[in-house]
């Protein structure tokens, strides 16, 4: 079903996926299935490119992928100088509102739209979720060990994380935490645990509370999952930055942030026990592994819930897709053509940019599905990029 636009692109794509180290195209030596030059096949569909006139696209939404989109937009504008794309990082909920009210050309969200949100769309319209990258939520901590040095190498299983955020585990030297950390058990101090959580609604909170909701029946019964929940304990702080700052300033603090923020802020993050019983640090590879593990169950409408406790030894247990949202039928043909071209570029060349700046690229199977999804875009009923 997956129809790749041209042999050149297909090979470049394969090379990118196999050798994520570099973004080079050099596909000429790869064995080709069918003989032929590396020119655009005369009968097959072509690579979507933006129209030649000046075009401006506006988008708004999630803050998590803002850095990635900024890099993409710059690189895309270098290739097509007539295209200008503005992306405003106003938050996932804001992105969904903006696309619902049709004030932007595309929205972006860390969480797939809910049924109720889809029902709120203008009558007769349909929206597509285009996955662009994956993120992970890591548990960060700032604890001065019993020996006076900063505690490092903390490991936590799901029950411990849930009990910390439920307020049942109150000190760092709790026997349950020590049971996860045989190596550093002697260093665990009697410092009280201070939970720092997001005070604003957030896709990060959605992924993290979905994790807690999945692993803890008590959390499921008393709190639940969502972008904003009623936290049993702890202080709130706005944004990933706010949580990082809050954790950094208090000895004994624990919080949760997006993977990229943990490395930016220099905070330590705990290894989390995955479904295979291994303690895994949050990493780009661990996230892609998580996504790979559930490729078969990926929903047809692309609205994948956060990936919790995926199978596999190297899988990190708290991961989620981030999406670009756009209407299937683009009222403005020029903008529609530009959007499809941009998304095509993002799903192919753009994927190679992700790892270097802390984002997990899509698994190959999902990438292929997303590329095929682009064929659905129409303008005035006519396919923009016939497949």
């Amino acid at each position: 079903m997956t129809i790749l636009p041209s042999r050149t692109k297909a090979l470049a794509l394969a090379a990118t996926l196999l050798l994520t180290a570099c973004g080079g195209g050099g596909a000429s030596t790869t064995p080709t299935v069918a003989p032929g030059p590396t020119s655009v096949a005369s009968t097959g569909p072509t690579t979507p490119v933006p129209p030649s006139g000046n075009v401006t696209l506006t988008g708004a939404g999630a803050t998590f992928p803002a850095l990635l989109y900024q890099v993409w937009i710059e690189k895309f504008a270098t290739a097509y100088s007539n295209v200008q794309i503005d992306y405003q990082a106003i938050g996932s909920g804001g992105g969904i509102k903006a696309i619902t009210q049709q004030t932007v050309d595309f929205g972006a969200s860390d969480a797939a739209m809910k049924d109720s949100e889809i029902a709120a769309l203008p009558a007769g319209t349909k929206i597509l979720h285009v996955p662009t990258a994956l993120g992970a939520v890591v548990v960060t901590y700032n604890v001065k060990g019993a020996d006076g040095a900063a505690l490092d190498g903390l490991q936590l299983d799901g029950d411990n994380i849930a009990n910390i955020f439920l307020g049942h585990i109150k000190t760092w030297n709790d026997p349950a935490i020590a049971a996860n950390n045989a190596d550093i058990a002697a260093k665990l101090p009697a410092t009280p645990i201070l939970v720092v959580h997001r005070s604003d609604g957030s896709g990060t909170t959605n992924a993290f509370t979905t994790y807690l909701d999945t692993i803890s029946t008590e959390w499921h019964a008393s709190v639940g999952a969502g972008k904003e929940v009623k936290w049993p304990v702890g202080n709130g702080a706005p944004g990933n930055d706010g949580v990082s700052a809050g954790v950094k300033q208090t000895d004994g603090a624990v919080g949760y942030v997006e993977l990229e923020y943990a490395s930016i802020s220099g905070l330590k993050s705990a290894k989390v026990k995955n479904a295979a019983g291994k303690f895994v640090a949050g990493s780009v590879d661990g996230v892609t592994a998580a996504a790979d593990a559930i490729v078969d169950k990926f929903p047809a409408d692309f609205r994948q819930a956060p990936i919790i406790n995926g199978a596999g030894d190297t899988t990190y247990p708290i991961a989620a897709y981030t999406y670009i949202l756009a209407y299937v039928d683009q009222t403005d043909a020029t903008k529609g053509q530009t959007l499809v071209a941009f998304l095509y570029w993002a799903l192919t060349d753009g994927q190679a940019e992700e790892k270097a700046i802390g984002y997990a690229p899509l698994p190959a199977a999902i990438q292929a599905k997303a590329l095929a999804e682009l064929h659905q875009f129409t303008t005035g009923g006519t396919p923009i990029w016939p497949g």
Partner: protein
Amino acid sequence: MTARSRPPRAGGRTSRLPDRVFRSGSGLFGASVVVILVVLGVQLAVNGDQALSTFGTGFLTGSTWDPVAGIYGALPYIVGTIAAALIAVTLAAPIGILTAIFLAELAPRRLALPLTFAVELLAAIPSVVYGLWGVFVLGPVLHSTVEAWIVDTLGWIPLFAGPTFGIGLFAAGIILAIMILPTIVSISRDVISAVPDSHREAMLALGATRWETVSRAVLPVARSGIAGAVILGLGRALGETMAVTMVIGNGEHIPTSIFSTAQTIASKIATTFNEAQVGLQTSALIALGLVLLVITLTLNVVARFLVWRAAGVSGGGRT
């Protein structure tokens, strides 16, 4: 506020066209202010109606805000808003009033001018700067000094009990106090200056000291105007968002101590509105805005009334 008499219309002479245009034009713009306020209130009420009609008075008295379960009670935020504002006023009122007395009555002219300028400059600092300063400088300092000391000495009173985090109601109150100081100082100073010199001269002629003159002749006359200045400051403290959001700790509970983390109405709206789900949650946040509007509007009306009365008593100019 004496109504100014209209320009007399001589019999037979109709007012000229520019006059008419001027009068209707400025009348229109004047009316637009009222219209904007009314539309604002109505919009808030209409959009917040879903939450208000779902929960009734429970919206004001409920202490649970749970978007997952769809239960919204505003009490923690109402208490947080009022508590932070009260702490601010408790700190800022005495400092502000004494500064105003100094500037209006005691300071030599060449000292009064730069000081007045400096106080008014405080009002020009963006609130996000106050917030940053609060988080990175004030919070840690408070945590290790003032808060630790208060908890050690007065901690047996629940209102002053720990634990302390540096950020929280107390830090927010201090930041707000600094922010409302210019309002209190400049209005109080104007009100004090509006007291006619004859009052002072009479007291001084009787052989009264400076202190007696100020405390017996000036302050009683200016009293309600100063009260108005304080209430205007309180109004500003209630609505301040950015700085408070950054230092109050965003605790989703009714604060039990002045060191508790808390959440104000304004910061709750600012932090969660963007990601709020369409429907009940959005409606509840808009209803929160309506509650805040009612609180600040009431206070401002009271303040205006007091300032107006003070100006009336002193016989000074219109305010």
